[in-house]
């Protein structure tokens, strides 16, 4: 029998296929592998961020700082590369360390001072966004050859379709995260903490280390997403990725992860991001619709998924022998 816990993910995948099929029937040129690849190209940064967010939400937390972290990463990268002439080989590891350290700090505050993740990461969100404007009020355009190369290089796949380097990075992150979530003690501890932190503690799991690592990982992912976003935009700007934290949470939830923690899949998140992408694509193919329809559809989908999860968990309780 099919395990009930996979149902939300199956629904997500089914929904993606359905939307893609609908788009293919309605629009010429929609049904192609390249369209799917384009979804990934445009949303690589979102995918990377969402992978980190999946771990945070599964652990029972939330990270609101990811959008601002992306912006701060673009800003620091652009400033160091463009205005100070640092080599990208130094700048990129540096910003990744910065993002991880930022996440680590938030995780440590959340754990040791027992403060709700919502408020700590909200503070982190304002802090990171504000720091962008300390560096510059305006856009810093990047024309460093490394960045432009990264932006323009197309990796040719067998069959002639192309993807950007960012997509490769994003897919590597997804695969690494799948392994991390399902085949390592760290991953299983995250699920255990999300299920019941008190129990996890009594079962002797390393709560402090795991929780802090989860936020560190999310910080790392969002700064990596920032690097990818820099490739995509070729600029640093304080208004980059505004509201991305909410898109990310939406993608994770549509991917079948429970906001209460303990249940969720990286694979689901992958399709959650693709669904967001496919909605955008359909709306751009439609041509006449405002891009805000994306938000409307995502809003409706979120309602749908939250209700679905509620129904499923209610069923789950009934299934328990009485």
């Amino acid at each position, binding site marked *: 029998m099919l*395990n009930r816990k996979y149902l939300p993910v199956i629904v997500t995948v089914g929904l993606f296929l359905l939307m893609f099929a609908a788009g293919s029937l309605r629009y010429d040129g929609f049904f192609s592998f390249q369209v799917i690849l384009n979804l990934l190209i445009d949303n690589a940064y979102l995918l990377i961020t969402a992978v980190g967010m999946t771990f945070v939400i599964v652990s029972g937390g939330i990270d609101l700082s990811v959008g601002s972290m992306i912006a701060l990463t673009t800003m620091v990268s652009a400033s160091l590369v463009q205005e100070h002439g640092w080599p990208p080989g130094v700048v990129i590891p540096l910003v990744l360390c910065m993002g991880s350290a930022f996440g680590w700090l938030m995780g440590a505050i959340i754990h040791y001072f027992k403060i709700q993740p919502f408020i700590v990461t909200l503070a982190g969100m304002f802090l990171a966004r504000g720091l962008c404007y300390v560096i510059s009020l305006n856009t810093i355009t990047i024309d460093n050859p490394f960045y432009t190369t990264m932006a323009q290089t197309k990796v040719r796949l067998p069959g002639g379709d192309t993807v950007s380097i960012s997509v490769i990075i994003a897919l590597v992150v997804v695969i690494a995260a799948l392994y991390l979530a399902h085949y390592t*003690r760290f991953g299983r501890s995250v699920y*255990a903490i999300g*299920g019941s932190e008190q*129990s*996890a503690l009594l079962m002797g799991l390393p709560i402090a280390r795991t929780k802090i690592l989860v936020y560190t990982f999310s910080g790392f992912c969002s700064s990596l997403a920032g690097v990818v976003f820099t490739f995509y935009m070729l600029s640093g700007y304080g208004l980059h990725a505004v509201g991305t934290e909410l898109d990310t949470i939406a993608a994770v939830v549509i991917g079948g992860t429970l906001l209460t923690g303990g249940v969720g899949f990286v694979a689901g998140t992958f399709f959650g991001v693709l669904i967001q992408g496919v909605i955008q694509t359909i709306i751009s193919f439609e041509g006449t619709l405002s891009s805000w329809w994306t938000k409307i559809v995502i809003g409706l989908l979120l309602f749908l998924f939250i209700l679905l999860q509620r129904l499923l968990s209610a069923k*789950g309780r009934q*299934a328990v022998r009485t």
Partner: protein
Amino acid sequence: MQDNEPILQMTGIHKRFPGVTALSGVSFRLFPGEVHALMGENGAGKSTLIKVLTGVYSIDEGTVTLGGSKVAARSPLEAQALGISTVYQEVNLCPNLTVAENVFVGREPRRFGRILWKEMNRKATELLRERLHLDIDVTLPLQDYSVAVQQLVAIARALNISSKVLILDEPTSSLDRGEVEQLFRVMRKLKQEGLAILFVTHFLDQVYEISDRITILRNGEFVGEYPAADLPRLELVSRMIGKEVELLERRIRGEASAADRTIPVAAAKGLGRKGAIEPFDLAIHQGEVVGLAGLLGSGRTEAARLFFGADRSDQGRLELSGAEATSISPRSALDKGIAFCSENRKTEGIIEDLTVRENIILALQATRGWFRAISRKRQDEIALEYIRLLNINPPDPEQLIRNLSGGNQQKVILARWLLTQPKLLILDEPTRGIDIGAKAEIQKLVMTLSERGMAFLFISSELEEVLRVSDRIAVLRDRRIVKEIAEPDINQQNVMQAIAGG
């Protein structure tokens, strides 16, 4: 059994907290291959002793030896490593993980850091089947199984850490009879395998059913250690509470009582809810105590919740004081004089961070509406009055309720509902997990109040208690009211027969 050396020996244990001595000079021995019951009223020091043993608290004085060598665990984790594992009343596992993971999480079989799922599932299946006689699909989430199975999984986890001493802290509180049997079978088997089991429970029947020896604590002091077979029940109880038990006589009331039997306070006519309780008829009159007896899961709570509108009925109707009450909700039920005291004291009853006074006032304030505040002076009067009336200890209205013992918390909740002067008070397991003294007080209170005209719907897992307080008993089996027993037929034999069926 008795001739070998004890695996665990605690001698002269002292533990003081600011202002209180929780344990003074307590000794405890545990032999391999025995089930040893630790008995005492709430506050006797049972939990403290266990916490000292498992490293939650440090020891002020005294020694603990395990297998002949002196040990001092500083955390539950260290205790586990020494071979002392604890399974608590509330199952401390992760409901979202699979059964196999719950047994192994933190110690999964791995190769090069990669978790070997197949091996883990196989080992878990074997462990559960061979040591606990439990043949279940270990790849399903734990939450798909009943509390009893979850408890067994918790034991499996403990055993897997090569346990020498297994502490079961009130494991049976939320199990029904069949599940308790299952647990006991496992305990007997583990005992034969040489495990030493420390068993804490409030149920006397269970103590005598499973235990080899009994150690009694009272007020943090060691009273004695006895073979279970040589200690009669009455003596056990009197040693626990330190005086002769004031055994409550079962009430027998003549027809001449003040009760008004014409129009029932509440009457269910074919009332039911799909999947919860089959349609039933039940009338409760003024001044009457109607008991609901039946096994856990037989639909007792479900039936009671329909009277209060906590769940919506989908069949039949409810009449309150002769008038039909359509679509009743807890709020309108309160208005009509029905109060409900839930079985989940912790989650549905007390508000932990409020004081005793605030907890008492809560329901009265709610019925008055939030814009007509009760004056502070009046609140203090009310709180003191009920603290005195119900003998709530400590008698301090400003104490946070979370600092009170279970029995006293229960009294506060009772006070809360009594204050609204209900015509019908529904009590769902009002005495669960509280000590014998407080139990007797609550039973007495129910009787006194019913004599003054209040009606009660009384639910309890303890049959003796239902028998003692009820004027009439409705027996439930498999979500159906199968029989109503009234005087003079109320006795254990009749009720048991109805519960068992056939």
